[in-house]
C-alpha cells in the first residue's frame, strides 16, 4: 500500500475507533430508528472526490476499514468506484455523492448493462435500491437506460419528485441504505457513458464490495480464534479441539485466498489489463460464498456468544452476506 493510502486508512480507522466506539453498534439498526448524522457527515467528508488512489490501494483501504465496520467501507467502495469512473469519463465530482446503481433490472453481460430505471423525455423514472447514505449527501449519481443507451445522471436527492425510504436489511445497516423512488424528476446533469466504461465500473464496484466482505469475514474469524484461544471446554482450550481448528483453518484459507485473488485482479486493472465480465463472473462464482461461510463458521466457533450482538461476530456475518448479495444475480454467467 502506498503511503497516502496507508495514512488515509489509518485516519479513518483511528477516527472510527476514537469518535464512534460504541456508536457503530447503536446505528446497526433499521435506519428509521436512529441515524447518527454526525458520524455520516464526517464519513462523507473523508471520502475523496478525486481518483487519488489506485485500485490496489482502494482494496487495501477497504480491507482495513472493514475490520472496523463493513457498512462504512461499503460507502467508500461506492465513492472509490465512482472516482475511477469519473477519471475515465467526462464527468467530475466536486463533492461526495451517493451511488444509485442497483435496481430491479440491473443486468451486466459482455455486451451491455441494463437498468429498469429510465430517462424519458429528460425525466427520470424508477426505483434505485441500497443507495448508501442517500439522506446524508445532497446529490446522487444515478444509472439509467434511455432511448440513446445507458446514461449517468447527477441529481439532487432532496428535491420534489424524489422519495427517500430507509431500507430494512439483513446487514450493512451502518451504511445507511435507502431506496430512492424517482417520479419524473428532471436531472441536474446528464452524462453519456459507454458500455465498456460502465462494465468496468460494475466490475470495480463489485470487486471493492468483495474486498469489504472478505475483510469483515476475516475479522470475524480472527475474533473467533481469539475467543477460542481464551475459552475452555472440557478442560481444554477450545481452539485445541480439532473440530474447531478445522472450522477456523478451512475458512482462513478460503478468505485469504479470496483476498489474494482480489488484490491480484486489482493489480491487473491498475496496469491497464482489462477484466471481462465473464472473467469477473467466474471469479465471483468462486468467491461468493466464502465470506458468507466464514461468517457462519465464526459464529459457530463462539456458539451462543457468536449469536448475540456483544461480540460483533453476527454483525460481520450479516454484513459479509449482504455485501455478496448486493450484485448477486446481476452478472450473466
Amino acid at each position, binding site marked *: 500500500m502506498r503511503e497516502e493510502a496507508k495514512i488515509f486508512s489509518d485516519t479513518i480507522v483511528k477516527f472510527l475507533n476514537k469518535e464512534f466506539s460504541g456508536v457503530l453498534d447503536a446505528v446497526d439498526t*433499521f435506519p428509521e430508528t436512529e441515524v447518527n448524522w454526525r458520524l455520516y457527515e464526517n464519513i462523507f467528508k473523508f471520502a475523496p472526490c478525486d481518483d487519488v488512489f489506485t485500485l490496489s490501494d482502494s482494496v487495501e483501504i477497504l480491507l482495513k476499514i472493514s475490520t472496523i465496520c463493513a457498512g462504512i467501507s461499503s460507502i467508500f467502495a461506492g465513492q472509490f468506484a465512482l472516482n475511477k469512473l469519473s477519471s475515465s469519463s467526462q464527468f467530475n465530482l466536486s463533492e461526495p455523492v451517493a451511488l444509485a446503481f442497483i435496481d430491479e433490472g440491473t443486468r451486466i453481460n459482455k455486451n451491455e448493462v441494463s437498468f429498469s430505471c429510465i430517462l424519458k423525455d429528460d425525466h427520470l423514472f424508477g426505483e434505485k435500491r441500497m443507495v448508501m447514505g442517500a439522506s446524508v449527501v445532497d446529490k446522487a449519481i444515478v444509472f439509467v437506460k434511455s432511448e440513446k443507451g445507458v446514461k449517468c445522471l447527477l441529481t439532487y436527492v432532496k428535491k420534489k419528485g424524489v422519495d427517500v425510504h430507509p431500507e430494512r436489511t439483513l446487514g450493512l445497516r451502518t451504511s445507511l441504505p435507502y431506496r430512492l423512488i424517482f417520479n419524473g424528476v428532471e436531472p441536474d446533469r446528464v452524462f453519456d457513458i459507454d458500455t465498456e466504461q460502465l462494465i468496468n465500473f460494475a466490475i470495480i464496484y463489485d470487486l471493492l464490495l468483495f474486498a469489504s466482505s472478505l475483510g469483515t469475514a476475516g475479522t470475524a474469524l480472527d475474533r473467533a480464534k481469539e475467543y477460542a484461544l481464551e475459552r475452555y471446554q472440557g478442560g481444554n482450550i477450545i481452539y485445541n479441539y480439532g473440530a474447531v481448528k478445522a472450522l477456523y483453518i478451512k475458512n482462513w484459507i478460503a478468505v485469504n485466498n479470496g483476498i489474494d485473488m482480489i488484490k491480484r485482479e486489482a493489480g491487473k486493472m491498475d496496469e491497464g489489463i482489462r477484466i471481462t465480465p465473464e472473467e469477473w463472473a467466474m471469479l465471483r462464482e468462486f468467491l461468493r460464498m466464502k465470506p458468507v461461510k466464514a461468517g457462519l463458521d465464526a459464529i459457530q466457533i463462539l456458539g451462543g456468544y457468536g449469536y448475540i450482538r456483544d461480540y460483533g461476530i453476527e454483525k460481520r456475518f450479516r454484513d459479509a452476506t449482504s455485501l455478496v448479495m448486493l450484485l448477486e444475480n446481476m452478472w450473466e454467467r
Partner: protein
Amino acid sequence: MREVKIAFSKKRIEEIIERARDFNKNVSEKVSLEIDRRTLTDPHYFDWEVVKRGCEYGFLSFPIPRFMGGGGATVTEVAVLLEELSYGCAGIANIFGAHYLGLSGILMSFDLSIYDRFLREVVEGERKGVPVLFSAAVTEPTAGTDVENRELLLKAKLVTEARRVEGGFLLNGRKVFISNGSVAKYHVVICAVDRNSPLETWSGFIVPANSKGFSVGRVERKMGQRACHAGELIFEDCFVPEENNIGVVGKAMDMTEIVLAASRPPVAAIATGIARKAYDLALNYAREKGLMKNEKVQMKLAEMRAKIEMARAIYLKAGNIFDEFVYGKVAKELPLMEPFLKILNPLRRTSQFLKITSSRRWKGLTVRILERRIDREWVSVSLGFSSLAKFSASDIAVDVCLSALEIMGIDGIFWENEVEKCLRDAKLTQIYEGTNQLNRYEVFKNLVEV
C-alpha cells in the same frame, strides 16, 4: 446398523398439522415480522398475546399426559407441531419448544409430586387462558457444550451450585442463554450439588420465578428467533425446598441424556420448518420474477426440496426411536393406566398424599423403577439418532436458506421479504441444544464407535 420401523397415526398427525397451520394463519403470520422488528431495538419486548392464543390451541399442555389433562403428545408429535409452527415463525415456535424442553425434564422423571404440583398448573392455566411457561436452565457462562455431555462435565468450569441445607438446597450462580428465561414462571434448573463432583451430584430443581434470591439478568440481543427471549438467570442464596428436587440428587445426567434424546428431534423439526419457509419464499419469488425456466434456479429448487424431505425423514425417525424404544419401554402400561390415574387425581393432590410422593423415599423408589425399565442401550441409540437429526436438519436449514438467498439475490437481504429472517433463525438451530460439533461427537460415540 439397527433397523427401526416407523409407525405413526396419520389421522393424529394430520390433526396436529391442521391445528398449527390455523395458528400460523391467525396468529404467527400476523405478528412475526413486527415482533422481529421491535425486538431488534428492544430485546425485552415479549408478545404475551401470542402465548395466550397458544393456550386456545392447547399448545402449552401438548406433551403433558392425558391423565393430567394434557395433550399426551409423543416426541414425534411435538416435533411435527414445531415444524409447522416454525414455518409460521421460528421464534414463536421456540417459545413453545423451550417450554416443552422445561417440561420434558419433569415428564421423564415420572415424579408424581412434581407432576401434581406443577404440570397441573400448566393445564389449569391453559384452560383459563393464563399461560404458565417453563424454561430449562442448563447452560452456564463458562460451560455450554460441557454440561450436555458426561465426559466433558467432569472437567467443566461450573459456576452454579445447589448446596444442601436443611429442608432443601441453596442455589448460587448463573445460567445463561436460557430460552424463556425472562418470562417463564418456573425454571427447571440443572446443576451440581457439589461442583467438585459434578457428575455424581448433577441434579434437577424447579425454581419458581418469584423465589427469593432469584432474579433475571440480561436479556440477550440475538441475531434471530427474537420472539423467544434468551435470558440470564441469577441465583443468590436462592432456597429451593427438598420437594422441588426432581427425582433424586445425582441422577440428572442420566436424565439429561434422555431429555436430549427427546429434545433434539424437535430442534431438527424447527430447522425443517424454517427451511420449508425459505424454500416457499424462494419458489414464490422465482414464479413472480419469471425465473422458473432458468435451469440454475430449477436445480437449486430441486436440491432444496430434496434436502427438506431428508431433514423431515431424519427427525421423524429419531422421534420414533425415542417414542418406541425409550419412552415406550418406560411407560408401556401408561395408556392402560391412564383412566385409573385420572380417577386418582384428586386423591393424589391431597396434602397427605403429596407428602408421601414428595418424600425422598418415594422419589428414590420411582428412580429405581425407572432405572430398571430404561434400556440404556436404546437410550444411546436414541441419543445418537437425535443428535444426527439435529445437526443434519440444522445444517440443511442453513444451506436451504442460503440457496433461497442466492435465488433472490439482493431481494433476499430485505427484511420485508422474510428470507433473511429465515437465515438468521436457522443459524441458531446449529447452536442450541448442543452445538453441531457436539452432536457430531454424540453420533460418533453412540452410533459409529459402538
